[in-house]
């Protein structure tokens, strides 16, 4: 039986996840799943289900911002979603296999490793890139665009390259999303930023748009398997939306480096905790 106090703690968890998401650009799942599974003792599949649902909320909730600012490149996002949605189907089916065979300790280890990998790109800085020579995919997939950069106070024109490379990484991102119940935003940003040579702002904003489409593909499979528990999802969902709203309202400018580093340190500890749990040590 779910109690009022338990629900209040879940809402608070959601708020923290939404805040951290807004401040660092990482999705809420890296907070929600470890907190639910380690602190609350919620089985990993239910924690992952709740995270996946909150990822959709984060993505669709940010829609007005990314459409207004015109930084999101819907074409590029959509062309890459072919791979992320296929990956999400494969990933969520794999998750189903893992959970029904009592192998969830494996996912604790993978989850910890994914959090550790997520930390690096957040610490790294991204500036304006020199334009590289276009390749065939630039032309074929129309990997071009322009946006107004508020910080630079000028319009930035850009073009992307290596679509196939980006698409391949997106397949992995989709699998990770379905397997762990996360948005895989970090992998998506890496694929577009480092792989396809798109500006970091375009990559981040396009990733925010993409995670919702990826997450819903995995979510319906989680749903059918009963991994989405209404009484767990509702308070988390409400909390995440409040946290994301407050986070974006108080953070007009980029958060300070120091604040980011503190968050990242916390995440490293969380990641180690997850790995130890998976290994059966913690």
């Amino acid at each position: 039986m779910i109690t009022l106090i338990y629900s209040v703690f879940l809402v608070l968890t959601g708020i923290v996840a939404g805040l951290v998401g807004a401040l660092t650009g990482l999705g809420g799942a890296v907070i929600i799943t470890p907190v639910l599974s380690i602190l609350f003792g919620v089985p990993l599949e239910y924690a992952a289900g709740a995270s996946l649902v909150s990822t959709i909320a984060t993505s669709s909730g940010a829609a007005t911002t990314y459409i207004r600012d015109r930084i999101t490149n819907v074409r590029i996002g959509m062309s890459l979603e072919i791979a992320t949605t296929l990956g999400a189907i494969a990933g969520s089916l794999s998750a189903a296999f893992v959970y029904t065979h009592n192998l969830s300790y494996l996912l604790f280890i993978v989850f910890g490793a994914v959090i550790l990998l997520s930390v690096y790109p957040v610490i790294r800085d991204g500036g304006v890139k020199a334009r590289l020579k276009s390749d065939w995919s630039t032309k074929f997939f129309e990997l071009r665009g322009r946006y107004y950069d508020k910080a630079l106070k000028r319009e930035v024109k850009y073009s992307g390259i290596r679509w196939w490379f980006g698409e391949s990484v997106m397949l992995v991102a989709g699998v990770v999303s379905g397997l762990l119940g996360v948005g895989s935003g970090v992998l998506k940003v890496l694929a577009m930023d480092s792989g396809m040579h798109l500006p970091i702002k375009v990559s981040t904003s396009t990733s925010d748009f993409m995670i919702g489409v990826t997450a819903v593909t995995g979510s319906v499979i989680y749903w059918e398997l009963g991994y989405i528990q209404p009484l767990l999802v509702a308070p988390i969902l409400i909390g995440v939306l409040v946290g994301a709203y407050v986070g974006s309202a108080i953070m007009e400018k980029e958060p300070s480096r120091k604040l980011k580093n503190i968050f990242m340190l916390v995440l490293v500890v969380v990641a180690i905790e997850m790995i130890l749990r998976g290994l059966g040590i913690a």
Partner: protein
Amino acid sequence: MKTPNLDIMLGVVLKLGVTLSAAIAIIGLIVVLVFGNSTIGENFIVTSIIVLFATPVIRVMASVVSFAMERNALYTIITLIVLINILVSILIIPAMVLR
């Protein structure tokens, strides 16, 4: 080029969808926790989750229409493939998994 009004309208629709979903979830949670009726409360929450699931699907459907109106054949097809992938996960995979 796309008409900006359609884009902005879509953004508003998505945000409304998320807000509506959250509102229904709050009602559901109150019904469970304050009035102690889990069945009715959970039905509300399930509805809120379905509304939330609909938001990215609407986003993709709108993009299909938008690319078709631009007469961009390649991207109309690409977006249709994405839509088919989502529909497969909704309609076909669950039937396979639950066998």
